[in-house]
């Protein structure tokens, strides 16, 4: 009950016309920067930090939170329509979303991601308001051993994107491992795979790799096929938004995605990418339309990961507000904004800055509503993008990808890497190697490696930490079931199908 009265008070702060205006401004700006690859919420908020010298703390945090949520919405638009992920958390969305767009269901993909984001964002924000103290206790029980086991579980998801040939899929995965290892090793401070180039010391940004492999590679491939076949413009099939069947397939995926995203987002080293991988794998396992995955595009594969990334965006706020722990780049920059007001974020924040915290939470609810209102009508406009003739469309994508990549670090080196990866993406496409495992490999491997080595340093080389910690053991068991379960299930199914009446010689 106390929470409700706090929340009501929060709404009274957020509903002032000035704060509503900041919220609208933030969500609009956030959507725009989410659409651009490279310009992420962290960079945008960092550039807007000087605003904290001019306006009240409530106003600037409402603005920042709007940008943060807005970017999560906007990132999916380009993933779906142009196969150019604007944010690392929306890379998985591109897998099925872009297939859907190419088979004429772009509107439905955009709608399920917008509505799923709304549902999951609202659930996540409810979680922040009501569950923060519980969730944070759970999150702190995660040590390096538990994180490593979580990564092992996440590796299971790779099987969902391997494609038809495991050898090709695993090859892609290992390429991803190598790209992920480029840069200074956090544990020892030694550079790896940098070839003496200082520009590579910080590693390669995952967005550069995703845009290079997906968008640039795709563009080269299309260019090489230009005169091979006839040029067709994909007609819009069915309803612009979602059909009843698509609603029925989406809502469970939204809920599952939100349930995965929120707690993992709240983990200090969880992040937004891992829940999207896990959600995608689960939706593919559970779907009754497995044949649509990787072909015409399955709506569950968009709905689940999109919900997961928005719920995780809310989850990130839990340790930030309750403990002052920044668990993402964006949260870290928001914390430095707290400091320019002389507010020290920490365990006392909910008490000492009730106005600010509850005003912020209330404005997150409002931001979610604004975002869905802002995004749904735009869908009609967005899908028209696909009616642009291929040469112009792909030229546009190339410009967009190049400008966006330059925006990440203003480094010409990144552009060279982008086009090298574009060529690699073209060759992979030409010889039928899946590109998604590269991305998953480069995100998961460094995390898994770092956490493994940390766990080993702390335990002084004792392997038993992985199975003596109950949480870690549970996660490893889940991973084992995920790996072995389907085989056993398929085996039993085969036995049952044959049935007892099937006696040799009977037929």
């Amino acid at each position, binding site marked *: 009950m106390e929470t409700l009265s706090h929340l009501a008070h929060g709404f009274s702060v957020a509903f002032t016309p000035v704060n509503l205006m900041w919220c609208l401004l933030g969500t609009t700006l956030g959507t725009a920067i989410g659409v651009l690859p490279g310009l992420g919420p962290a960079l945008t908020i960092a*550039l807007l930090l*000087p605003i904290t010298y001019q306006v009240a703390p409530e106003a600037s945090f409402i603005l920042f939170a709007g940008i943060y949520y807005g970017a999560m919405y906007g990132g999916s638009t380009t993933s779906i329509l142009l196969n150019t992920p604007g944010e690392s958390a929306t890379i998985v969305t591109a897998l099925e979303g872009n297939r859907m767009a190419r088979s004429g269901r772009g509107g439905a993909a955009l709608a399920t991601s917008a509505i799923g984001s709304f549902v999951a964002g609202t659930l996540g924000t409810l979680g922040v308001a009501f569950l923060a103290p519980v969730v944070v206790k759970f999150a702190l029980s995660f040590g390096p051993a538990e994180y490593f086991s979580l990564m092992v579980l996440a590796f299971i998801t790779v099987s969902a994107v391997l494609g038809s040939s495991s050898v090709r899929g695993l090859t892609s995965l290992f390429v991803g491992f190598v790209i992920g290892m480029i840069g200074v090793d956090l544990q020892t401070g030694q550079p790896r795979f940098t070839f003496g180039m200082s520009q590579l010391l910080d590693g390669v940004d995952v967005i550069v790799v995703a845009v290079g492999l997906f968008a640039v590679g795709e563009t080269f491939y299309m260019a090489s096929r230009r005169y091979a076949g006839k040029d067709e413009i994909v007609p819009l099939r069915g309803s612009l938004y979602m059909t009843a069947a698509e609603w029925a397939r989406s809502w469970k995926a939204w809920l599952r995605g939100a349930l995965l995203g929120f707690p993992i987002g709240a983990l200090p080293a969880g992040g937004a990418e891992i829940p999207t991988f896990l959600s995608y794998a689960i939706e593919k396992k559970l779907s009754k339309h497995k044949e649509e995955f990787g072909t015409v595009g399955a709506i569950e594969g968009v709905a689940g990961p999109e919900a997961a990334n928005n719920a995780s965006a809310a989850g990130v706020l839990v340790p930030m507000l309750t403990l002052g722990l920044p668990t993402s780049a964006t949260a870290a920059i928001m914390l430095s904004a707290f400091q320019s007001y002389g507010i020290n974020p920490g365990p006392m924040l909910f008490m000492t800055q009730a106005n600010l915290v509850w005003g912020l939470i209330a404005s997150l609810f409002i931001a979610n509503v604004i975002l869905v209102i802002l995004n749904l009508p735009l869908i009609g406009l967005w899908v028209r993008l696909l009616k642009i003739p291929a040469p112009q469309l792909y030229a546009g994508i190339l410009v967009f990808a190049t400008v966006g990549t330059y925006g990440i670090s203003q480094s010409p080196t990144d552009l060279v890497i982008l086009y090298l990866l574009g060529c690699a993406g073209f060759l992979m496409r030409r010889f039928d190697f899946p590109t998604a495992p590269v991305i998953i490999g480069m995100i998961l491997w460094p995390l898994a490696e770092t956490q493994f080595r940390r766990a080993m340093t702390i335990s002084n080389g004792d392997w038993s930490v992985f199975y003596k910690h109950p949480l870690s053991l549970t996660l490893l068991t889940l991973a084992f079931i995920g790996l072995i379960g389907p085989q056993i299930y398929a085996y039993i199914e085969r036995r049952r199908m044959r049935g007892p009446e099937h006696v040799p010689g009977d037929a």
Partner: protein
Amino acid sequence: MLNRRRFLMSTAAGAAGFAALHLSPAFAQDAPQIQIFVPAAPGGGWDQTARTMDQVLRSEKLISGSQITNVGGAGGTVGLPQFISQWNGKGNSLMVAGMVMVGAIIANKSANNLTEVTPIARLTGEFEALVVPAASPFKTAADFVAALKADPTKVPVAGGSAGGSDHILFGLIAKTAGVPAANLSYVPFAGGGEALSALLGNQVAAGISGYGEFSEQVKAGALRLLAISADKRQEGIDAPTLRESGIDVELFNWRGVFAPPGVSDADKAAMTTLIETMAKSDAWATECKNRNWTQILLTGDDYAKFLAEDTARIAAILKDLGLA
């Protein structure tokens, strides 16, 4: 795209027809424009230093405006060569850098170093804190050192990235205690936040990071502050310095400003005066207080001498830690 502020400002300046990039007495209020080069991405400590300087310099009417350029990467060693080659001789320019860059230059075996630029002033520093979880058996820094002497592998310590200021301080503490640096069990985390969660979750025995990272948890009683690395006791902080605890180590994660190579003596003197005036203003003092920055102003030859000494000390400890 490079920087919203820079873009807007250059457009505005261009439209007004000013040659805005040079010290120009014809400019509004006779205050110069300056350019600040930040060899890090927006949002970090150096960037905040630059943006706070810009804010204070303008509010004190010492400059009419500034442009901030960010070239991030590898502890500043990506930006430094650019500042040396492309900003050579620009008398109205400054680069923000600090102890982290000294360490990164050594660890990354960078071709350029800070002797090639012109030291103007050391501005601020953040002292480090040695903390343990509330449930820890260590009550004092001496307890911690005793455990370290007994078996360093049993005392995992969390902190920032390998070779950073936290790791360096851990190495220095061990060295004074006579514990070989190679035996230390240091668990590096990408940021203070992650290290903090490892401490709160009792995953490690102790933590070392900037005091600001831990201050709120110490106040809330979730962490116990054993000692700070400042030169003297600090107002409002109930903990001894390392030196008072019998560990002869003092360390500030300092930040300062540098002019490019090849600037004239007149420009150097003018810039030093500008920064000194800023550092002595009330507005700067307030900003520093809000951000837990300790003012440790040092200019001219004293700064150059300090830089040489600190570089030698860091090089030695990084070598012991196996990073250089």
